[in-house]
């Protein structure tokens, strides 16, 4: 990659899909209605853990308006795996997750489905289904799940990875290790050691648009699905496998998407809608309520993380010990492996040992959530780093700079880092006026780092040129973060056409080349690379067409931003006049005479994009009488490699920070002892809204990524990682209390403050103080 000067990249054009979205014309998952369509509804388990003794659907099938009834036995059992982009997923687990077979393993798991002429009729019929359960004791935390004699979710669960403890008869689904050096000797060298245990709650991605789809499946087994998804090809392959169809006969049309953050990569409704449609021979529409979204779609893991870090007096970290336990929900597959890999990633530590545990519990199966696994691990580590800075009386940024990884250092997860922007981000944070601004009464300032890998994988792009010189670009990635605009900008950059004359389109699975999910911060990087290559192919074809018009060899012509220049002495073959430079539009206007339509295509498999680092500064004000806290100032700095559209990069950073702040301060699934979520709605599951937050200031740092022609790294996941630590460290500054459990909700904060006050006054404390 060269130090290239850009014309379009780095500017801020209005997004192509913007007007449709702000006027309500954009069509989302629930906006499609097809002739003759039925409405599907799901009967969900009232128990978190139970055996299904019997299901009687006869009365439901006979109910007015009912056209199809479905239970687990109607779906084929499969042991297939399908690619979810970075990782394979067991289709059997996915199938059982969306329709229970002989056992229910979380409250809200579907056990039957009905399609009827109206939604009311479908719901009424659900009430006629009789399910007999043998209720079992649920396990709701990793401690409960791993306790001796704990009820087992799956009799056949096998512990993957390094074996510690029993391989079967367990709720431990996996265990992983990373180590380097001599940990015991490392701690011997330490002048100060800080050790804490942290916990984070189960939290949801909180996308505003619930899951929704409409599907039709004919007598011939051919199906069409319209749905809100991050991965139309995942929906195609998973739907085919679960519903028992040939994937060649399934077409998925992605709607606009109202947020996903990882939660719309897996399927919940689509195979059920297809299977109901196949039975009824009519289209079936299914839309989740918010209650269903909370109870039965993937949140991210509740966690326990134990951290011990030792440092010398000068701040050099010499040893670390990190143990992580992540809830997977009801089926294996928490992001604990990623958490283990991220935990110490920013630092060069000569001696460490990390072990990670994937634990099944009677909660909904977790799904990916922005930098899956990293926020919880780094919350714990960044809290301990903050404590070490306090003990050593060092500036928290200086301590991190002293131990920060740089190009050529071996990452804690194995390979050596290429060019990374961690030090540049730390330097920018230290220089930022926020870092040196005074802090008000009852306020505290916190600082924390975040790390994520950023994905690559399969991407394809097609560009067609119109006779008027405009261009259309097609890819298979639903646009979540402004990627349509970024792709149009890349075409404009390469072809020298106005970005407003490039039409970016999210194509269906029959039109786009196979493309992995919109996720993993991969689209601008990997699909963007395909778009650039396709545009460059168009550019080469334009040169060939111009050469034909001048009757010269293609290698004799040159490209100069949006036009092709002739060699000296060349003549126009038709007029005989001296050849003049030709614009894209002029060449396109004559495409019929020079060889027909002009199309560029590219398909590639990209490596992971390259590490991204962010640093957040948070000022928190705490009301000591109520425990309520308020973020009063927030600055997020991040190395993004190269910002293609800075507004959308800033938006990603702000959005990630907002979600992370909510995770830190308020959000949590509240369960009763029976495993029933008690706050399944936005009134009781408190996500931050605009009025809760200050303007989140952003600083874009650009250390180019050599793996991308523009230097792009990926943006969207890193910014959710630092807020948990930054907010907790700010709370520590404001209150003098080290909180080790999230969220820092007013009752929890008030309880701890009361404990400290009681100790100061010599009264019995109500709780132990964390620090």
């Amino acid at each position, binding site marked *: 990659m060269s130090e290239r000067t850009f014309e379009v990249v780095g500017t801020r054009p209005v997004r192509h899909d913007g007007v449709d979205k702000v006027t309500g014309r954009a069509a989302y998952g629930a906006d499609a209605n097809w002739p003759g369509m039925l409405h599907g509804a799901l009967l969900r388990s009232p128990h978190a853990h139970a055996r299904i003794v019997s299901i009687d659907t006869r009365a439901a099938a006979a109910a007015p308006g009912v056209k199809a009834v479905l239970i687990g036995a109607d779906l084929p059992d499969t042991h297939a795996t399908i690619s*979810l*982009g*970075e*990782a*394979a997923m067991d289709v059997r687990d996915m199938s059982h997750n969306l329709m229970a077979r002989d056992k229910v393993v979380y409250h809200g798991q579907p056990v039957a489905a009905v399609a009827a002429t109206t939604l009311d009729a479908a719901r009424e019929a659900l009430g006629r289904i009789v399910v007999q359960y043998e209720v079992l004791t649920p396990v709701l935390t990793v401690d409960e799940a791993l306790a001796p004699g704990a009820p087992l979710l799956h009799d056949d669960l096998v512990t*993957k*990875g*390094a*074996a510690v403890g029993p391989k079967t008869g367990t709720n431990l689904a996996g*265990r*992983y*290790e*990373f*180590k380097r050096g001599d940990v015991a000797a490392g701690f011997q060298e330490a002048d100060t050691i800080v050790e804490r245990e942290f916990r984070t709650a189960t939290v949801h*991605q909180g996308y505003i648009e619930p899951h929704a789809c409409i599907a039709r499946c004919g007598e011939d087994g051919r199906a069409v699905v319209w749905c809100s998804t991050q991965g139309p090809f995942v929906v195609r392959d998973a739907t085919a496998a679960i519903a028992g169809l040939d994937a060649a006969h399934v077409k998925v049309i992605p709607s606009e998407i109202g947020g996903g*953050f*990882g*939660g719309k*990569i897996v399927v919940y409704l689509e195979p059920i809608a297809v299977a109901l449609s196949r039975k009824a021979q009519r289209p079936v529409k299914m839309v989740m309520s918010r209650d269903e979204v909370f109870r039965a779609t993937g949140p991210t893991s509740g966690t326990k993380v134990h951290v011990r870090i030792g440092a010398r007096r000068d701040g050099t970290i010499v040893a670390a010990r990190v143990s992580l336990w992540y809830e997977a929900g009801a089926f294996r597959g928490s*992001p604990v*492996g*990623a958490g*283990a*890999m991220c935990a110490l990633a920013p630092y060069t530590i000569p001696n460490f040992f990390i072990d990670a545990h994937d634990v099944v519990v009677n909660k909904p199966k977790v799904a*990916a*959530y*922005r*930098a*899956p696994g990293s926020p919880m691990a780094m919350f714990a580590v960044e809290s301990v780093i903050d404590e070490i800075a306090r003990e050593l009386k060092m500036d928290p940024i200086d301590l991190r700079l002293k131990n920060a990884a740089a190009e050529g250092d071996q990452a804690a*997860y*194995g*390979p*050596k*880092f*290429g060019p990374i922007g961690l030090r540049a981000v730390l330097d920018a944070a230290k220089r930022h006026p926020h870092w040196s601004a005074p802090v008000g009464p009852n306020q505290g300032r916190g600082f924390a780092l975040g790390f*994520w*890998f*950023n*994905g*690559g*994988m399969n991407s394809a792009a097609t560009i067609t040129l119109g006779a008027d010189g405009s261009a259309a670009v097609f890819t298979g990635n639903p646009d979540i973060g402004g990627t349509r605009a970024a792709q149009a900008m890349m075409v404009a950059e390469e072809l020298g056409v106005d970005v407003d004359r490039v039409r970016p389109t999210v194509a269906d699975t029959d039109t786009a080349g196979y493309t992995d999910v919109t*996720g*993993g*911060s*991969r689209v601008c990087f990997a699909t963007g690379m395909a778009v650039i290559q396709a545009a460059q192919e168009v550019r080469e074809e334009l040169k060939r067409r111009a050469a034909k018009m001048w009757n010269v060899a293609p290698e004799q012509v040159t490209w100069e931003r949006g036009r092709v220049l002739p060699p000296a002495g060349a003549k126009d073959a038709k007029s005989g006049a001296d050849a003049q430079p030709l614009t894209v539009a002029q060449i396109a206007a004559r495409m019929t005479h020079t060889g027909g339509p002009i199309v560029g295509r590219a398909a590639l*498999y990209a*490596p*992971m994009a*390259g590490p991204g680092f962010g640093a957040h500064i948070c000022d928190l004000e705490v009301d000591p009488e109520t425990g309520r806290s308020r973020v009063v100032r927030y600055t997020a700095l991040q190395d993004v490699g190269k910002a293609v559209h800075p507004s959308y990069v800033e938006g990603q950073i702000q959005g990630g920070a907002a979600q992370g702040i909510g995770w830190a301060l308020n959000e949590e699934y509240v369960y009763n002892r029976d495993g029933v979520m008690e706050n399944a709605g936005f009134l009781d599951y408190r996500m931050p809204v605009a009025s809760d937050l200050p303007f989140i200031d952003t600083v874009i740092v650009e250390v180019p990524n050599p*793996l991308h022609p523009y230097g792009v790294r990926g943006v969207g*996941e890193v910014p959710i990682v630092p807020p948990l630590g930054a907010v907790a460290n700010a709370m520590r500054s404001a209150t003098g209390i080290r909180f080790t459990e999230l969220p820092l909700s007013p009752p929890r904060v008030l309880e701890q403050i009361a404990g400290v006050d009681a100790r100061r006054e010599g009264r019995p404390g109500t709780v132990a103080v964390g620090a």
Partner: protein
Amino acid sequence: MATVYLPSGFAQFTGGVESVAIEAPRVAELLAALRTRFPALADQLDEMAVAIDGTIYAEPGYQPLRADSDVHLVPRIAGG
């Protein structure tokens, strides 16, 4: 020869070996050689990404190796 570094948790499948030098032109041949040398490791390899000289490939396929490549096996990462 490429040097392959295994996660420490894999030591139980390799008799304690944590790194090994293997002559292989591409990742596919390297993984095949690992399976032959450490049969107990075979099932684990299917779920690993491969970092070649610092660049991680979730599906390494037939990526070429240099004679002195550093190869790290790392768990696959699922993004959001």
